[in-house]
Structures are given as C-alpha cells and as structure tokens.
C-alpha cells in the first residue's frame, strides 16, 4: 500500500508480552521474537487487525440483523428510496462492490461481501499466519473499508425500514440531558445501537395511544435513532453517562440491545429495582431466553417474579417493555438512586482521603481529593471532575470505604435541559453540487467531522468548543454518535447550544448531525460523492481512484477526540483508507497504532495528473498524518486546520486555509507556525493578513517557490492497475 510508505505505522505497545497461544507468554522486548517467530511490530499490528475485525463485526452483525428483520417485515424486494434529495444512495457500497443497491436484498448482498472478507481477516490473526506488520496493516485498512460498507448498509436499512426523514437538513431539535426526563411517568430507558426493539415499543405505544403515558429516553446510538423516529424520544446523553443515569434510579424499564452497553447492567438494574430486558444475541447476560413464551407470561415473569429476561424478537420485546413499564413504575420506590445534595455530602463524609480511587481512575482524575473537599463543603473540584468523568465506576469499586462516588456526583451534575438536532442521514446530492467545487479548490477551508465515542480527556466541553471554532470560521462541521451529544451539552451565555446557532446544511459554517455511529458512513459517503457528483468520477468499483482523489483534493479531517472502542478504531482506519486523516484524543494512543509521517524526511512525491510526469519531491506534507494522537485541544484545533490543506488547493483556497492555520496557531500556540514554509508553494498562497510576517519567515528559512501541480495524484507512484488517465 502506497499510503503506508508515507504514513508509516507507529506502534506504542501496551504490553511486553504476547499471550496468544500456549507457547507463551513470549517476551518481545529488546528485539526478541516469540516462539512462533513474530516480533513486536507484527504482534502489535496483529492486535490492530483483531480490533478492526471486532469493530467491523459489530456493525456488520448489526447490519445483517437489521436487514434480516426488515426483510422479514417488508420482503427482500422492498425498494431503497432515500427521498428526493438523494440519487447516489450508497456511495460506499457502489465504490467498493460495484453494486448499486436498489432493494433490501441488495443490502444483504453487501453484508455478505463483508462477511466473506471478515473470515479471511480473522484467519490471518491466528498464530502462525501473517508475519509482516505492513501486511497486517494492509488488512486492517481493508477491514476499515469493510466496516464502512457495513455501516452504510445498517444506516440505509434503518432509514428506509423505519422511514427516518432524509429529505430535510433541518431535522427537529430534541431534548438532551437527564434533567428534562419526566419522572412522574413510567420511564423506559433504551441503551445501545440497534433501535429495532425500541422502535417496536414506540410503535406499540403509538398504536395504542399510550405515547403520552410513558416517557422514552435513550443513551448512545439507540437514542439517536429513536429520536430520528419520533420527536418525543429524549436523549439522556452519551455512553459516558450510562452508569450515572442508571444509578439515579429514574428508569423503570431498561431495554438493552447491543454495543456500548455496560457488562454489569443486570446488577445495576437490580439495585435500582428496574426491569431489564435484553434483546440481542450479542448481549444475553446469561438470562433465560423467553422469546417463545407468550407476552403475558413474560410480563408476569418480569413484573411479578422480578426476572430479567432475554427476548430475541424485537416486536415482542417492544410490546413487553411497554406493558411492563407502568406495572414496575407503580410497584417500586421511584428514583431509588436519586439523592439530594445534603445526602451526598453526608455520604462523602466517610472519605478518608486515601487516594486509592484516584489511582484507579480511567481518566487520571484526582477524584479522591475532590470527594474529600466536597465532604468539607466545597463542590468546585467535584463539579469540575464530573465534567471529565465517564462515570465508569472504577473509582467506586476501589474505594475501601465503599463510598458511592458516582451517586454523589448527582449533586454537582447540571439538571439543565439541552438540545440536539436529530440525525439527518446522508448528505443531499444538491448540497454536494453546491459545495463540491469550493471544497476541491480550497475556498471552503475544510470539512471537519467529529466522530462518536465519549472517552474525552477533558469532558464534553472541548468538543463543543472545537466545533464552534470551525463553524465560526465557515468550515463545514459534521458530528455523529456520542460526539454529537457531547456538543449539545454546552450552552452559551444566551442559553443556546451549538445545534441552535448554526445552519444544519452541508454548507460553509453548517453544523450537522448525521446520526448514530453507523451514520459515519455518510461522512465518508459525502467525500465520495464529491468525487462522483462534482468531479464525475465513475463511482462503481473505482475504489483506488476515489481514495486518491479524496486524499489529494478533498480537504476533510476526522476528529475522534473520545474514541474508546474497537468500532471507533476501525471507523477511523476506514477513513484513512479513503484518504481522510483522523485526529484522535490522547486516550487513543492506547490503540497502539497510528499512521504518521515526518514532514521533513518522508516521501512527498506526487504525480502531476495533467502532464503525467513525476514531480520530484513535492515537499508539501498534505495531509501530514493519517492517524494522529494530539494531546491538547489547543494543539488539536491548530492541527485540524492544517490537516485540511490539500495539494490541489488553488492559491485562493490555500490563502484561506493558511489564514486559518496561522490565525489559530497564533491564538493557541503563539507565533507563526514553524512549518508554514512547507505549505507555501508560491507567493500567491500567502494570506494577505499575515503577508509581511510570513515573507520574513520565508526569507529566514530560505524558502524557494515551487511550481503548482495540476491534478496531483499518487497513482503511478506505486505498482497498481489503476490508470492515471482515470483521475480527471
């Protein structure tokens, strides 16, 4: 892979040993090899591939199940129609498979393609298989690409199957936050990523005119998707508030589907006296499978015997939940976990300031000190920590005095209600037509996509700040999954969230919520569509050319600031495969692998697609890295602006991009960036506003003007069957 030559894999091993087979553990430090002959780099890359396979399987299995469920409902010839605004329905499937999916059955074909690929990828992670880290990475990139196919299948399936709105950009604003939940009604909490059972419940409520009697709220992507289905569904928040919200005891019934659900929900639900219904073969919790029992019998098991059950039929699960909720709600002491500030302080008083909780913290928070100070009357530190806390509960488990730290945090958590725009699905063709040219020329300075997951180093606030910075500067700002929720958790002085302040279209200065995790596919899809629609590159099975186009001409940058899961990793790797760089938050170093270049030393040669003659050393590291961890928000903002620079920028476009890069750098980092000379090809690239200063610097570093390359491309700089004449 040509990409891996410039963007070399960077490994940060998490462990000195390999424990994969019974020859181990093998110590891989200091150049040692394992009993199977593997070295540390290949071992890390193998792990990377395993992670990507897990990620793609999560979406793939989810997609297959959804498609099967909907085919059951609607038949396999059910037409895919995303509405008036969208002709190019499935840019990823088209490009990868060369298939234009027209029916649900075609989506199944696409998923089968993913499944076929998966088994080969997993196979090569077996001991005694692949020996080269680069080939493992190659496979990981392939896995990322399959993941994007799987996500596209899953989101298209639910959009057409559940008729989510897709023809409008300004989807409704829905309530966000735990404060606005109406606790006087029975409350059903839905958690996960596969909305089928939750939607079945909503249908049941609607069909029986019970909508007003039950409060439906959700966490994670199922929340996104139920709020696409009905405005009434409320969004509690991101994954990181799962344990917190459950411990509040507000939910009467919890419906769990799949992905990003805590493994200890049975215990947690039991503690607050809520019913728990598992609905997926992915998460069975050891519950009895009651799928084949009668609904009334199941309702009785839950409401009377207090059983937690597994119901694999979404429709049945939905109906059971709807029926159980009022029964549970009247029987139990409502909000058993709900406490007031005085109680919280009282509970905190048991703290002996031993600091064990701090040591256990996943996010390196000094939680012990905060609890101590809170018990002494000062809530400031705890309130601060709550903002960065994922409520993972590790501190609490460690506390020798069993202080309920997570519960105590209720005292400092805002009870405010926020807003989030519900997910809109794919970008419209017409929008692409309008912004395609300015993006490729560089006059829209970039598309910045904030991808899901909420393992944020310093809380939700940073996401909102970053998004706003780019929206204000007229970038196109897109968000998905937990990131979209996080962005909505911050209000400005006028009490407005970012979702209320910016236009919802794919336009300069627009702020978009595409939807749940699987809607990430629409972000890659938009980049592909730019090539398809605007540049008229043929879409079908024209993978390599399109990725090359995006890498060299579409100024897009992904930001996965809180990436925690295997899915997030495979999604990011998939973006890389499409030529889109991704900035990751500090936790993501734990993924063990990044793709980095070294701007001064690496291979920046490109081909001039117009003349077909090799440009010797193009110098310009654009984009500089493909998968890159950045430590602080300030530096991230600066770097994102830089990563939107593309080789194809016109002088006007480049000026605009550099203007932002320099401006942000001055603001957050101080002074001119010291690599600015690498991005200036000719004097016309220099932003007016900084001209004098930049010129001086250029002189200092001995900058020389370079010629502009027409249609820059990597095609022909590496062995490939792709034809340079195809790049246009």
């Amino acid at each position, binding site marked *: 892979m040509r990409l891996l030559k410039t963007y070399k894999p*960077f490994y940060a091993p998490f462990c*000195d040993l390999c424990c994969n087979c019974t020859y181990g553990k093998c110590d891989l*430090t200091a150049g040692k090899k394992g009993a199977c002959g593997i070295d540390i780099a290949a071992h890390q890359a193998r792990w990377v591939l395993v992670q990507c396979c897990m990620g793609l399987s999560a979406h793939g299995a989810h997609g297959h199940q959804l498609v099967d469920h909907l085919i059951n409902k609607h038949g396999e010839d059910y037409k895919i129609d995303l509405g008036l605004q969208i002709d190019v329905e499935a840019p990823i499937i088209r490009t990868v498979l060369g298939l234009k999916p027209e029916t649900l059955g075609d989506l199944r074909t696409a998923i089968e393609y993913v499944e076929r690929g998966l088994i080969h990828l997993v196979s090569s992670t077996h001991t005694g298989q692949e020996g080269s880290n680069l080939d493992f990475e190659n496979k990981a990139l392939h896995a990322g690409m399959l993941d994007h196919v799987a996500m596209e299948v899953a989101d298209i399936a639910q959009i057409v199957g559940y008729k989510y709105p897709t023809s409008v950009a300004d989807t409704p604003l829905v309530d966000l936050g735990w404060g606005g939940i109406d606790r006087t009604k029975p409350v059903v909490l839905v958690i996960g990523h596969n909305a089928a059972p939750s939607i079945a419940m909503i249908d049941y409520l609607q069909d029986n005119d019970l909508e007003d009697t039950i409060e439906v709220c959700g966490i994670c992507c199922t929340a996104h998707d139920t709020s696409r289905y009905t405005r009434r569904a409320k969004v509690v928040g991101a994954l990181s508030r799962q344990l917190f919200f459950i411990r509040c005891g507000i939910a009467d019934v919890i419906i769990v589907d799949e992905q990003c659900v805590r493994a200890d929900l049975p215990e947690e639900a039991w503690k607050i006296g809520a019913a728990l219904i598992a609905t997926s073969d992915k998460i069975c919790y050891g519950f009895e499978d009651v799928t084949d029992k009668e609904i009334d019998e199941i309702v009785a098991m839950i409401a009377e015997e207090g059983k937690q059950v597994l119901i694999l039929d979404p429709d049945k699960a939905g109906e059971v939940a709807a029926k159980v909720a009022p029964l549970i709600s009247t029987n139990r002491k409502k909000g058993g976990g709900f406490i007031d500030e005085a109680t919280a302080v009282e509970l905190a008083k048991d703290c002996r300031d031993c600091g064990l909780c701090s040591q256990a913290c996943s996010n*390196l928070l000094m939680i012990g000190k905060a609890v101590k100070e809170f018990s002494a009357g000062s809530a400031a530190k705890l309130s601060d920590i709550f903002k960065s806390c994922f409520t993972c509960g*590790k501190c609490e488990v460690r506390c020798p005095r069993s202080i309920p730290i997570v519960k105590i945090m209720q005292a400092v958590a805002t009870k405010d209600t926020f807003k989030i725009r519900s997910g809109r699905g794919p970008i419209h063709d017409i929008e692409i037509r309008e912004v395609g040219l300015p993006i490729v020329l560089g006059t829209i300075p970039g598309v910045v996509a904030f991808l899901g997951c909420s393992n944020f180093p310093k809380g939700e606030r940073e996401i909102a700040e970053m998004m706003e910075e780019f929206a204000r500067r007229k970038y196109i700002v897109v968000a998905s999954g937990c990131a979209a929720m996080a962005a909505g958790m911050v209000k400005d002085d006028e009490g407005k969230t970012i979702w209320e302040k910016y236009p919802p279209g794919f336009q300069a200065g627009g702020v978009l919520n595409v939807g749940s995790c699987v809607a990430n596919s629409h972000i890659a899809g938009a980049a592909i569509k730019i090539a398809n629609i605007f540049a008229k590159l043929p879409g079908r099975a024209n993978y390599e050319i399109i990725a090359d186009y995006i890498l060299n001409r579409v100024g897009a940058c992904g930001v996965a600031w809180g990436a925690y899961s295997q899915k997030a990793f495979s999604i990011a790797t998939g973006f890389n495969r499409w030529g889109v760089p991704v900035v990751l938050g500090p936790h993501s*170093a734990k993924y063990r692998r990044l793709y980095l270049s070294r701007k001064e030393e690496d291979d920046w040669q490109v081909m001039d697609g117009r003349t077909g003659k090799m440009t010797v050393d193009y110098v310009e590291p654009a984009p500089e890295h493909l998968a890159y961890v950045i*430590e602080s928000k300030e530096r991230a903002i600066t*770097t994102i602006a830089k990563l939107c620079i593309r080789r194809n920028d016109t002088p006007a476009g480049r000026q605009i991009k550099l203007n932002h890069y320099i401006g942000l750098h001055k603001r957050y*980092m101080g*002074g001119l960036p010291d690599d600015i000379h690498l991005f200036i090809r000719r004097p016309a690239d220099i932003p007016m506003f900084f001209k004098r200063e930049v010129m001086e610097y250029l002189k200092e570093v001995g900058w020389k003007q370079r010629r502009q390359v027409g249609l820059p491309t990597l095609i022909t700089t590496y062995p490939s069957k792709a034809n340079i004449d195809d790049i246009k």
Partner: protein
Amino acid sequence: MMKPYWDVNILTGSKTARIIDDPAQWAGIIKKAIRPLYILGPDTVDRNIGARLFLEYCLDVAKAGKLPICATGHVRKKMLERDVHPDSNYDIIEIINHLQDPEWLGVKKEGNHDLIVFSGVRCDLAERGLATLKYFAPHLKTMALCRFSHPNADFALPVIRKDSKWQEYFEILIDNLS
C-alpha cells in the same frame, strides 16, 4: 518491577524502569548525556506545584542542565510569554516518532538525542510514548521526571505524593545540575 501511581499505567511485562530516589543521581545522568532533550507537556502549564507554575521548575531545570526543549501541546505559548523560545515544537507523538529513527538529526540538527527527559505529559499518553521508545529506540535512554512514576521509562522517580516533596526534589535536582 515497579508500580506507578496510575493503575492504567501498570506495566504488563518484563522490562521496567530503574527507580532513582536521589535527585543528585538524576542530575549525574543528565550531565553525562551528550545530546539530551527535555520534552515538556501541557500539564506543565495547566498545573501548579505549590504556588509556582509547574513550567517554571521545568524551565529552571532546562536552564541549569542546558537542555534543549521540545514544547508539546500548547506549552509553547506560555514559554513565549516568558520569552523562552522552545528549540522545537512537535506534539508528543510526533517527537517520539522522530526519536525512533537513529539517523534523525535531532532538534538541533546535531544528531539524534541520547537522553530524553519528560515532564508534564499526560501520564497515560507518556507511558505509551515511552513504550514506543523502549521498543523502537534502543539507541537512547528515557527519563520520566514525573511524580506519578513511569514503568516504561529507563529511569523513573518513585511516586511522590506530597507537593512539598516534589518541590524539594526539583530544587535539589536544579542545584545539582548547575
């Protein structure tokens, strides 16, 4: 084998840091290095030690030990405010990526560094970076000047719980470096 302050940084493995209690000994190692580099992370500008900014201590160390500085995160800005120009301006992962290459010329273009000292890098991230260097940069040694201790470094401090102890450590170190 050692235990760092943070659980997420517990070493899983076999090759762990030498713990050096005595700041004078640290100073000795730094002085012996031919081309050391001091990497400063954002915690140096986001945290105080006692009343002083963490960064102030680090700058004193750099000055006393004549260590070139790599400013990561947004440290640069606060350095400029103090009229100190960092010798380089990479983010933590970037500088580590460069350090892996024995042929790299270093921030002063005089050759790759032989000793890397860290302060104020987010602990879990620093530990990942130190792991990278442990494996892929056998040509250099790493020192974690961090009160939470770093098993993947070559040399680390013991866990220092008290601010006053930490201040004192810095002071003795600076004295011994000058």
